[in-house]
């Protein structure tokens, strides 16, 4: 866009072209003096890592089998092994379930809280502070605190029993049907503030005019909510969902510190299974093949996510115009 603007400037003021040329050259120099160290650094760290990963996924190697550079070439055998491994399949299913469930949970909770709070009221600031606290708790701390609280006669069950007056005794961490949802609840507890913050910012930034106009026209709150607020919030909603989903796919500290994949394999998600394969079984090669598959999967998901986010951002730019989008480009 800057190019277009600069070109336009050229047309208007041809006499500056000499200066413009040197200016453009300077900008280019400026650009590369910023980007080249970044690219060099990424190349320095990421290329060898990706190369090693590829090497290991095509060669059969574990620590017991001599030096890694002498490992046997096995072609795509490892990928075949991983893709036909039901344990890997289940881990993927669990990861997806975990990510989906916790994303939706975080979003609904965060949105509800934000909706109740976006108009000023007494105590708003205090609630805000309390609500963001869970996000400021380190995930490992969440895991260990959860362990302190979630045993069967622990404070959570005990408190609920006292409040509702009926014996409430789920075995949060040891019942294989409940264990994964328990971690999900922890994730929701931990990251609802994230959705809450984004949705609160989104709700408060909606311009008042369309809502007021709708009110004057006699629209019900319900209709205003669905037909005015939600469409305006779409980009923010997508953002909250996508970021949360990606982070939840990668969630490791809580699941690992709390349950290490157990009971049985009830909480063995993809990161946990890769960790076990690589750092407990020391099947470096199989772990590398798994990592590659997961990486490809995640790149695809991220690319789709980026596409959605970009589209939403462009809609936003058209709705709000360039003014609100900041002074992007050199033209404004």
């Amino acid at each position, binding site marked *: *866009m800057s190019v277009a603007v600069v070109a336009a400037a050229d047309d208007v003021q041809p006499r500056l072209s000499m200066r413009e040329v040197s200016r453009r050259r*300077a*900008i280019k120099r*400026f*650009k590369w003096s910023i*980007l080249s160290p970044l690219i060099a*650094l990424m190349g320095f*760290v990421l290329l*060898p*890592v990706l190369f*090693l*990963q590829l090497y290991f996924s095509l060669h059969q190697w574990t620590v017991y089998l001599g030096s890694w550079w002498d490992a046997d070439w096995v072609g795509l055998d490892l990928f075949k092994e991983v893709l036909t491994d039901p344990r890997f399949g289940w881990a993927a299913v669990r990861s997806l379930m975990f990510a989906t469930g916790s994303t939706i949970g975080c979003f609904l909770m965060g949105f509800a809280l934000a909706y109740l709070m976006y108009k000023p009221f007494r*105590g708003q600031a205090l609630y805000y502070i*309390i*609500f*963001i*606290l*869970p996000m*400021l*708790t*380190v995930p*490992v701390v969440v895991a*260990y*605190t959860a362990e*302190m609280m979630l*045993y069967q*006669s622990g*404070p959570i069950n*005990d408190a609920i029993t006292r409040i509702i007056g009926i014996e409430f005794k789920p075995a949060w961490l040891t019942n294989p049907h409940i264990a994964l949802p328990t971690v999900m609840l922890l994730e929701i*507890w931990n990251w609802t503030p994230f959705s809450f*913050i*984004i949705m609160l*910012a989104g709700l408060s930034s909606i311009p008042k005019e369309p809502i007021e106009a709708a009110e004057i026209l006699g629209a019900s709150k319900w209709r205003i909510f669905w037909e005015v607020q939600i469409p305006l919030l779409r*980009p*923010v909603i997508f*953002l909250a969902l996508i*970021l949360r989903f*990606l982070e939840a796919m*990668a969630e*490791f*500290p809580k699941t690992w510190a709390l349950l290490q994949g157990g009971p049985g394999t009830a909480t063995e998600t*993809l*990161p946990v299974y*890769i960790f076990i394969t*690589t750092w407990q079984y020391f099947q470096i090669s199989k772990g*590398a093949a798994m*990592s*590659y598959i*997961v*990486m490809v999967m*995640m790149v695809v998901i*991220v690319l789709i996510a*980026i596409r959605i*986010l*970009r589209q939403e*951002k462009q809609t936003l730019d058209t709705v709000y115009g360039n003014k609100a989008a*900041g*002074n992007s*480009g*050199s033209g404004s």
Partner: protein
Amino acid sequence: MIKSQRRRATSIVRYIVLSLWAVIAFFPIYWMVSTSFKPDTQWFTWPPVYFPDPPTLDNYLNVWFGAEQYAATQYSISSQKPLISLGNSAIIASTSTLLAVLFGSVIAYGVSRYKILSEVRMFQLLMLRMIPPIVIVAPLSLFYSALGLLDSMVGLILIYFLTSLPYAVWMTKSFIDEVPREIEQAAEILGASRWRTVFEIVLPLIRSGLVATFLFILILTWSEYLLALILTKTQVTTLPIELSKYQGSTEGRVYGRQAALAVGITVPLMIVGLIIRKHLARGFSFGMVRR
């Protein structure tokens, strides 16, 4: 009149719902703090003990200062004390964050003013953050061990720097976008170089934004677990890793000490978070929220 009644009802419902969630949000934190003040007979009991009776500072003295006879850490040597981990965490998190913010803000300036990265590239930069670290950590540790970066602060700083860069670029860009261009144009006409413009005009103008960005990213690097778990050994331990050592074996888990350590890890983060609470949305929203 009906309307005002309805409004009052709504307001009561709102307070009930919000207070309920406030309790849910706060209870685990309360439990952590209260456990850290409990004597060891009250950590794990049937039924649970809600208030430390009597409250004791033993856990803190023991964990942070190695006091008292129980002390798993009593004779511990060299790098293994939490205070040292605290130092490590502080140095690693703040250095990598500082680098990310400095470098990120320059990139952000370039993007904001000269579009040196297209929007697609900007989003692709986010991939650095969004690919789960577990998929690269094994080869990374081999590569690091070849370079001698394993178990060094430099190694962790480098990888934290790279993974927090996307947030730094996006967040500082949102601040730079708000700075009017006229001042820079004036400087440019006066013959100032672009670098001088960045460092002497633009960045000072968004000072508070840089601080917010710094603290925001500090939250993320401070709590990182997996990379620190695998890339460190003896010389360097960050606090979250230190915490996972407090699982007892023959004595049962030492919840009280663990909680005392957990409080120490969490409190700095909460302070930081509360300082920048107004800016959190900006950090997370990648330009999706317009003000």
